[in-house]
């Protein structure tokens, strides 16, 4: 049954769809095909829960990356559905042409391929190549409007992202050097499943230096604070479906790479503990982004900074580690992906309705566009961590477990969260309520993906299914 190997399918379906979409003219059928391809990928990803192939030299599936792959393909699918309605409007207003759309759909699938490959890669070299591929495709997508701002944003993303992945590669080489005396010179010396079993014998000093490079390199792609400069521009200037995918997926993929290497370090008792480094960077990102939220005037930039803030929380949680810390990190990551992409879907339609991204030119959305206005209210409430939603659960868990161990750090996290909450409240109240401002057009909003995401986030806050809890607990112990 080699033809139905789900791992290969998760990779081959996007690749095949990319080739097909590059050949198809028009936009209605390609956008549907895009959704269909993503849906098939999602089905294959789900089947990985039941049927798990043996890890090879290049690909593998374990309990950790199944979570990431399913999340990745799910948000990829809903974003494709959102994109289908978003793109039609962009075509009518003339911001995109049919030729660019064909390119856009094809690149969307190449990007899904790159991200899926990074997640299933068992080889740290292959993982690096896949992250690079995903970066390149998103760079092209960010610049697709070809306005000076979009090109500037794409260039900035390009240069910073390239430096990031270059540093990550240097770190990867150092990991190989640390492994070589133990594993030997063979094809297996970069295979993660081999490395993790023998990591305790690696040279700890070399591993430490390697981790610093990997943290800086993949950390750039995660959007951690001193290295985040590319992120707001890339989110604000590209098409909104890409903003949703960047925040909801690509940051997670880079985080996943970081977690893999963290596990490697944790398996070596003599190496430095990766936790404090991650805690420090995470906290810095959280506080920094929370403060920066106040000075935003562009609604997409606002939520881009909110993504930096949340990635800070997630990295902090994985840095705190322990079963509860990791559990909170995993839950926060899942909830953030779902919530933030739902917010970007809503914001995408809002900017189309208002014809601008500037918050000063928007107002009274609940009056002019009740559905979009109220879904934005729900999304912002969820992302700010208000009670009935899933983000509240994970942040509450994180703060309680941190308070048990490091009360001062818990206080700092709470402070950051409150600053961010107040910023969202101050900036978005006039946009959502207030008197109607600016022009307003009718949009055919596809609300289904938004509602699906928000419903899942709500479900995560009210009732987490026991099998999911058990699964996350199991993964949390794997992460150490």
């Amino acid at each position, binding site marked *: 049954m080699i033809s139905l190997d789900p791992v290969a399918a998760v990779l081959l379906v996007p690749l095949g769809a990319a080739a097909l979409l590059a050949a198809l003219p028009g936009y209605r059928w390609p956008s549907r095909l895009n959704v269909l391809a993503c849906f098939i990928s999602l089905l294959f990803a789900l089947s990985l829960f039941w049927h798990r192939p043996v890890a090879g030299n290049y690909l593998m599936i374990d309990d950790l990356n199944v979570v990431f792959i399913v999340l990745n393909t799910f948000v990829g699918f809903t974003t494709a559905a959102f994109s289908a309605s978003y793109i039609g409007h962009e075509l009518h207003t003339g911001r995109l042409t049919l030729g660019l759309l064909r390119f856009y759909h094809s690149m969307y699938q190449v990007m899904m391929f790159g991200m899926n490959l990074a997640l299933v890669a068992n*080889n740290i*070299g*292959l993982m*690096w*190549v896949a992250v*690079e*591929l995903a970066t*390149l495709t998103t*760079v092209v997508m960010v*610049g697709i409007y*070809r306005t*000076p701002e979009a*090109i*500037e944003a*794409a*260039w900035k993303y*390009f*240069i910073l992202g*390239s*430096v990031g992945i*270059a*540093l990550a*590669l*240097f770190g990867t*080489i*150092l990991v*190989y*050097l640390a492994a*070589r*005396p133990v594993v030997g*010179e*063979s*094809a297996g*010396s*970069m295979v993660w499943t081999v490395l993790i079993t023998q990591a305790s014998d690696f*040279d700890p*000093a*070399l591993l*430490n*230096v390697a981790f610093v490079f990997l943290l800086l390199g993949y950390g750039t792609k995660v959007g951690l604070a001193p290295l985040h400069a590319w992120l707001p521009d890339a989110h604000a200037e590209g098409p909104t479906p890409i903003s949703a995918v960047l925040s909801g997926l690509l940051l997670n993929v880079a985080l996943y790479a970081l977690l893999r290497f963290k596990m490697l370090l944790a398996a070596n008792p003599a190496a430095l503990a990766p936790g404090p480094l991650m805690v420090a960077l995470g906290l810095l990102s959280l506080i920094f982004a929370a403060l920066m939220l106040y000075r935003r005037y562009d609604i997409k930039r606002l939520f881009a900074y909110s993504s930096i803030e949340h990635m800070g929380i997630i990295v902090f949680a994985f840095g705190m580690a322990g079963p509860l810390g990791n559990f909170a990190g995993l839950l926060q990551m899942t909830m953030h992906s779902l919530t933030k992409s739902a917010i970007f879907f809503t914001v995408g339609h809002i900017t189309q309705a208002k014809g601008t991204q500037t918050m000063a030119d928007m107002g009274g959305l609940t009056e002019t566009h009740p559905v979009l206005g109220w879904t934005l209210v729900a999304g912002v409430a969820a992302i700010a961590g208000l009670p009935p939603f899933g983000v509240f659960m994970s942040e509450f868990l994180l703060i309680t477990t941190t308070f048990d161990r490091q009360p001062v750090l818990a206080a700092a996290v709470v402070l950051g969260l409150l600053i961010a909450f107040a910023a969202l409240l101050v900036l978005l109240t006039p946009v959502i309520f207030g008197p109607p401002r600016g022009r307003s057009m009718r949009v055919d909003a596809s609300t289904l993906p938004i509602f699906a995401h928000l419903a899942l986030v709500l479900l995560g806050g009210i009732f987490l299914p026991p099998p999911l809890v058990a699964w996350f607990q199991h993964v949390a112990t794997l992460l150490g």
Partner: protein
Amino acid sequence: MMLHDFAFDIAHMLAGALVLLSLMMLYQDRLYALINVLALHALVLAMSVAWQAWVHDAPHLYITAGIALVFKAIVIPMALRRMVFRLRVHREIETVVGTGLTMLAAIALIALSLEVMLPVTAGVDPVSREDIALALSVVLIGLLMMVTRHNAVSQVAGFMSLENGIVLAATGAQGMPLVVEISVAFSVLIAFIIIGIFLFRIRERFDTVDVEALDAFRGERK
């Protein structure tokens, strides 16, 4: 043993030459000259990789050396030169910090990378060890160059020298799998950057270079 020492000396010399060329890039204040040094940088990298391939009897590394030679030492410098000519920015490079300070910073970075890498890699064989330490200095100087230059072409030059440093490290790490694939992936990345500049003509980056102001500045310095 004699031959091994000789092989080590050559590898060491080539890696050292790369660091030297990286330093040379820092003080080039004309784009054409910078591109020439960049081509030389890639040439030395190709020689270094080919030497590793011969010494360690690893024929697949010849592919990496070939890519460095054809693509990075010939094709890309030609494309960059054409671009500089077409965009009419061949006069001067904008520098943020003075050359003297940049050079001092670069020397500090070299010292730092030797200080960090040599003790850490004590268990690794000497060739890899020296290569990794020198490669890290090339990487850091490349980063320094990208930070201090604001012009797209010199940022690309900085990135390419950084990337050469990484290829040096990857080939120095004896027996590393996927080296060829990674160097191909890197070349694709660079090709993308170059095509990006060509297609989109990142003009606003060049508009800030006010030629007359620079001329006045140079007159003052002489």
